[in-house]
């Protein structure tokens, strides 16, 4: 059986992504295990291979652009914003974004008084239906261990300085609820269309580690 190369290179035991892709086309031990488990389940007719293909298409269709659309719409439509804050899942579904799992969604509004940040200290819960899959840093120990304990230091590492008179609220996902941060609308965007606004909303702004982008100077008004 092929040895997993990483276990020999890293004898320290911290959590880290394995970014190196095998130089050969040979599948790894774990990749072979995944193929074998999946094929056995299909042979036993417990699942069907078409379900896996369909779910891969669903996963590929989920990107932060969906969340950005939700945020931009909330910025221009106060009625929608109120409904979104009342029930995040229903608000997203109103815009045609389906939830493929049984999670709930709470949308957390940033204001001049409150800055929200999301984390999952126990694993990697994340609003996948609206943002896609989380970045590696969100799943790794430094962010999970520290965001809940020293959020201001963590934000500073992302270049975000929150004034002392602003309350930081860190939401830790443990159960069926996922969170999405509704960042503040940047100044100078009064004449922006919803589509232009959406381009200012990044994934990291919806996690709460940075604010929404400022508009390019020439577009400000």
């Amino acid at each position, binding site marked *: 059986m092929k040895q997993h190369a990483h276990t020999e290179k890293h004898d320290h035991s911290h959590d880290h992504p394995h970014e190196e892709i095998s130089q050969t086309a040979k599948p790894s031990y774990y990749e072979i295990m995944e193929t074998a488990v999946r094929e056995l389940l299909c042979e036993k007719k417990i699942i069907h291979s078409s379900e896996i293909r369909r779910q891969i298409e669903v996963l590929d269709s989920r990107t932060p652009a969906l969340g950005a659309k939700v945020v931009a719409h909330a910025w221009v439509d106060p009625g929608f914003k109120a409904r979104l804050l009342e029930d995040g899942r229903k608000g997203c579904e109103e815009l045609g974004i389906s939830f493929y799992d049984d999670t709930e969604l709470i949308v957390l509004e940033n204001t001049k008084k409150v800055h929200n940040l999301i984390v999952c200290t*126990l694993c990697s819960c994340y609003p996948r239906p609206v943002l896609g899959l989380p970045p590696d840093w969100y799943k790794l120990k430094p962010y999970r261990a520290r965001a809940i304990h020293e*959020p201001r230091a963590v934000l500073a590492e992302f270049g975000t300085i929150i004034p002392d008179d602003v*309350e930081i*609220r*860190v939401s830790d996902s*443990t159960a*069926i609820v996922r969170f999405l941060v509704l960042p503040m609308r940047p100044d100078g965007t009064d004449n922006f269309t919803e589509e232009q606004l959406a381009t200012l909303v990044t994934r990291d702004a919806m996690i709460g580690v940075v604010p929404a982008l400022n508009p390019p100077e020439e577009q400000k008004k």
Partner: protein
Amino acid sequence: MAIIPKTHPTYLLDVTSALNERPAFGVGDRVRVLVRFPVGHYRVPIYLRGKKGIVESIIASPYVDNETEGFGHNAGSRLHYYRIAFPMTEIWSDYVGTQTDSVRIEVYETWLEEDAK
């Protein structure tokens, strides 16, 4: 062992009553997270044990306890999750930040008691 007659209310103690699906705590209630150490699986991080907070909201649908769901039991009595606000300074004695900074987290009903103070 005493035989409990079927008409006796305690006979129903381990039967799920629809009444149990009514939330035990309300928004604004002061609560405390119980201190206990289940092994195998839990979803209440250690940093919360024994900490006092305030119920911010009640998650509308009741759910099966994830401590049993983790072992494959997807049915049974359903209770509520509560979104609780805890001051950072309540959780971390060495907290560096503003006094109003807080943690918001969902805690299952069986982990909460009234903070009678």
